[in-house]
């Protein structure tokens, strides 16, 4: 369960990135966060991922109030969240397999388990056999699939995707979207930020519509009226 209650985020330059955002997303739900550039989509995802702190309001992620004073288990929370970015954020000097394995190694999985899980997830994203290839040799769509594999390899219960199709052509975007749909079918909660209205219209999921940091979609049905 994801909850944001009257969340405000103002940057030191007094720019209001989010204003009075409240929402509730249930386990296994797929939700779009939509809006033009600068509308606060990324800030909202970063707050859920604990890489930004809200100026005020309460945020609960997977049962943990991440806004409570003294919360310092960010790394443990992040192990239950997979994050996918528009620019992939892959290690360019590593292979496909090493990039995916990295997420398991840093959390202390034994090498045999790492190997098993990496091959399993690469098969799932359609990159089995490419594990020894450098990520530099991959197309943008393939890179995004590696990033999704890395985000998924820990079996997170929540996936936060920040415009993951923003750098892809339509065909690649569709392939990547199929992976997110598969995740949703498996019961993973997916919060998908995008400014692609065509993509949103193609899928019957609720939309959190942001404009200049404010929600403008009360009829979307997933907001809480606090």
């Amino acid at each position: 369960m994801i909850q944001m209650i009257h969340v405000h985020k103002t940057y030191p330059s007094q720019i209001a990135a989010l204003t009075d955002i409240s929402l509730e997303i249930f386990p296994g739900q797929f939700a779009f966060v939509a809006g033009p550039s600068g509308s606060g989509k990324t800030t909202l995802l970063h707050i859920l991922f604990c890489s930004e702190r809200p100026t005020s309001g309460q945020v609960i992620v997977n049962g943990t109030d991440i806004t409570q004073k003294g919360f310092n288990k960010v790394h443990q929370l992040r192990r239950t969240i997979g994050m996918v970015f528009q620019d992939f954020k892959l290690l360019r000097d590593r292979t496909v397999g090493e990039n995916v394995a990295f997420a398991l190694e840093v959390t202390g999985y034994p090498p045999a388990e790492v190997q098993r899980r990496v091959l399993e997830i690469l098969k799932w994203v359609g990159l089995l056999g490419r594990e020894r290839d450098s990520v530099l040799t991959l197309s943008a769509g393939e890179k995004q699939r590696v990033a999704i594999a890395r985000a998924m390899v820990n079996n997170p219960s929540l996936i936060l995707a920040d415009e993951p199709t923003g750098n892809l052509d339509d065909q690649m975007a569709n392939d990547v979207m199929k992976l997110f749909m598969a995740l949703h079918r498996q019961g993973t909660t997916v919060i998908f930020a995008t400014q692609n209205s065509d993509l949103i219209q193609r899928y019957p999921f609720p939309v959190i519509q942001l404009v200049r940091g404010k929600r403008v979609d009360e009829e979307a049905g997933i907001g809480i009226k606090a």
Partner: protein
Amino acid sequence: MKPSLQYVLVRAIRNMRRNLFPNITTVGVITISVLIFSAFSLIAYNLASFLRIWEDKIEVIAYLKKKTPAGEIETLLDKIRQMEGVESVNYVSPSDAIAFMEAKLGDQKNLLEGIHSAVLPPSLEVQLKKEYRDSTKIGGVVSQLKQFPQMEEIQYGQEWVDLFSSLVHILRLTQWVLGGLLLLAMVFIISNTLQLAISSRREEIEIMQLVGASPSFIQVPFYLEGMIQGLVGAGLALSFLFLLQKIVLFYLPSSMKDWLVKIPILFLPINTLVGILLGGMILGFLGSYMASVRFLKSSQ
């Protein structure tokens, strides 16, 4: 689940190999700093050991008035033997003194021809207990000896001992002041080089944070890196110092070598060596701690 120590160690070594140049620079600077510090330690240690040997040999020579009656000497010896700090007293008559000088001069004893033993004063060789063989305590014994009316003059080489003691103190002080500055510089340099190394791995650290690596998992390899740099730098410095000492002793002029035969030239004792190595590691750790805390604070 926690990553194994082996994994963390492998990562630290791999990181060092990937950033070879900054690592070599840091180790080089540490080596030079520790070398200067330990060279001062070595000189001070040898001078202090020389001073100890010298102090061990120190004895007080008390010259008696020539007209001291023979009957008083035995009583005087007894009184001195009972004084605090005195280990033994030996009476040297004028004829003993001439015999001693002849023995010392060997083939050149004819230089003493015509000198009658009566010109020499009788004397007492006062050997002090070990704990009384420093300049302050000798002074105490000497002032007690001066109270005896039979005493003409007392000698014990005080000026030399004092001068030498001051020299050792100055060296020790220089070692710690200069050493302290060098060590501060070392922490600063390690911290900056490691910060460069950490910055060059900004992307990797960011991804580690994204996938849920704990702060200690990210920081520990950097601490290890700093400690390895400190240990290697200190180890190299001590090796160079050892070689340097050997080379200097080898190339000493032979006249100086003859003089040094009686003085043992020592290398630093094992506990100092271990202390310097551990000190290098601790400074390496401090440098990397400062660097990683600064970096991770800004990147979390």
